């Protein structure tokens, strides 16, 4: 196929999230997670066929959802399942070290991968009450690894200052990254090993093994290191071999569109970002 096939940001983004999932692992997504929802099922149908797929908040095991709904706690997510477990059991599995991957986001993500989903401001001085972390505070400690995603890396300017999502320090730490206000994961003797990937609309990061600071690994075909630096409050590590990400195939994208006919994956993006043109 030599013709160019047009894809949109949500598709590349979801593909990047899917690629953080290894085969033969046990994987769960939480609430408010359209992109992980689609990415997990996509991974299960492509490179991670032996993944144990815990279908979100309903805790169905290996469902085949007819489509993805706009909420994570819907009977669509239980269709075609192999088994049901209960949420308390899911959290047990995590605490026991059996949950290999989950997905968390935040209104703020700091350089060590801590996330804030609780409040802008501080207790007693709340400026914006965010939705809350659901299971994130526990699972970010317990699951072996997790993927952070945010579709709001690009920092808008308000008056004379930029409003960063990737901040030097979170107003409030809900979900724990590598170095928390109370010490490192090792000092805290947490069960899991912490976040290993961050996917944003500007790039894909892992963590520098030494400093535990976010490290830029991949760019989109239309983003530069400078774009990333301009939209990040702290100075991320730049991987010496930073390059444009591997792109999905046309078949990958067709599959993604087929499994997500309501395009719930697009709901997470500011409309303007979806206009970015990509071709595979």
């Amino acid at each position, binding site marked *: 196929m030599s013709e160019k096939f047009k894809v949109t940001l949500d598709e590349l983004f979801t593909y990047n999230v899917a690629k953080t999932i290894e085969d033969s692992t046990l994987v769960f997504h939480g609430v*408010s997670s359209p992109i992980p929802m689609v990415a997990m099922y996509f991974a299960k149908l492509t490179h991670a066929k032996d993944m144990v797929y815990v279908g979100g908040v309903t805790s169905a095991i290996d469902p085949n959802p007819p*489509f993805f709904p706009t909420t994570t*706690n819907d009977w669509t997510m239980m269709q075609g399942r192999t088994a049901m477990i209960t949420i308390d059991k899911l959290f047990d599995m995590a605490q026991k070290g059996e949950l290999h991957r989950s997905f968390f986001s935040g209104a703020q993500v700091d350089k060590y991968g801590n996330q804030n989903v*609780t409040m802008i401001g501080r207790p007693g001085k709340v400026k914006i009450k965010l939705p809350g*972390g659901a*299971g994130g*505070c526990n699972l970010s400690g317990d699951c072996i690894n997790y993927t952070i995603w945010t579709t709001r890396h690009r920092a808008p300017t308000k008056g004379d200052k930029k409003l960063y999502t990737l901040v030097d320090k979170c107003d409030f730490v*809900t979900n724990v990254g590598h170095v928390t206000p109370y010490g490192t994961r090792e000092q805290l003797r947490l069960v899991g090993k912490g976040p290993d990937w961050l996917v944003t609309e500007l790039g894909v990061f892992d963590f520098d093994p030494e400093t535990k600071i976010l490290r830029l690994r991949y760019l989109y075909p239309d983003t530069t290191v400078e774009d990333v630096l301009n939209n990040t409050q702290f100075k991320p590590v730049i991987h010496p071999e930073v390059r444009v990400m591997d792109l999905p195939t046309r078949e990958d994208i067709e599959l993604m569109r087929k499994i997500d006919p309501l395009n719930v994956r697009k709901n*997470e993006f500011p409309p303007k970002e979806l206009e970015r043109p990509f071709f595979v």
Partner: protein
Amino acid sequence: MTLEAAASLIKDGDKVAVGGGLCLREPIAMLRELTRQGRKNLHLCGTAHGFDVDYACGAGIVGAVEETHVSFEQDFGLALNYRRACESGQVRIHENCCNTIIQQFRAAAYGIPFMPIMSAKGSEEVLLHPEFKHIICPFTGNDLILVPALTPDVAIVHAQKADIHGNLRIEQPYVADILMIRAAKNVIVTAEEIIPEAEMIKLGPNVPYYEVAHVVHVPWGAHPTSCYPYYAYDREHISNYYKITQEGADAFKTKYLDKYVYGVKSQAEYIELVGGSERQKRLASWKNGREAWMELYNYE
């Protein structure tokens, strides 16, 4: 028992565990009745919720929220009544995390004073919970957080099926309902259907009668959240609700509460107001296959 009588058993200031979660099987009819009765300062607790908590904050019946998440997810976004109530200080923020609160319900259900958890260390959510304790584990030397039993004064749950004795058949996902029922001092259930005991026994209740104090028959008691297999969630109603909440607290009172809560005298009247049998038919149409089901999420 009537919904009015059941709601009257809940007192101002009670710690209330709310069943269901996000868009699913929330006891909304009970919350409307509590609003009509002018209940104040309820301390809501549970896992990840949405319409219920946002509604109750907007209705002014809440004094504290100990849920783990309140939003309309990526469908509509932040829960605006909840935000306003938290940001103004009207509601005390006791935000919790899912496993933490599950362990707190477990401790209550198991009759023990606390559960140890491995996580939450490093998170500032513990700042919202001065009641948590730390110990050095006598077995591992690890620093552990001990989270105390959380015993709701009452759990309010909407179940698919009940019999008159209180045996319940709740369909998956149970969310935390079965656990909350075991943790709470008192359990009040609204049920979509009351079925004969013999039929219930054949189905196999997942909550035995002696755990349930009161059952009220309330068809569409979870609307506008879903109560499968009877009805999917009413995205159109919630969309309209959300737009009203965007207009502010006053608009919420005049356009939503006055109409859907104070303006109706019974659940039957409410059902008529939100679209009657036509609407009921539409929300049951998810059963007609993938296309029909998708249509319910796609009306705009």
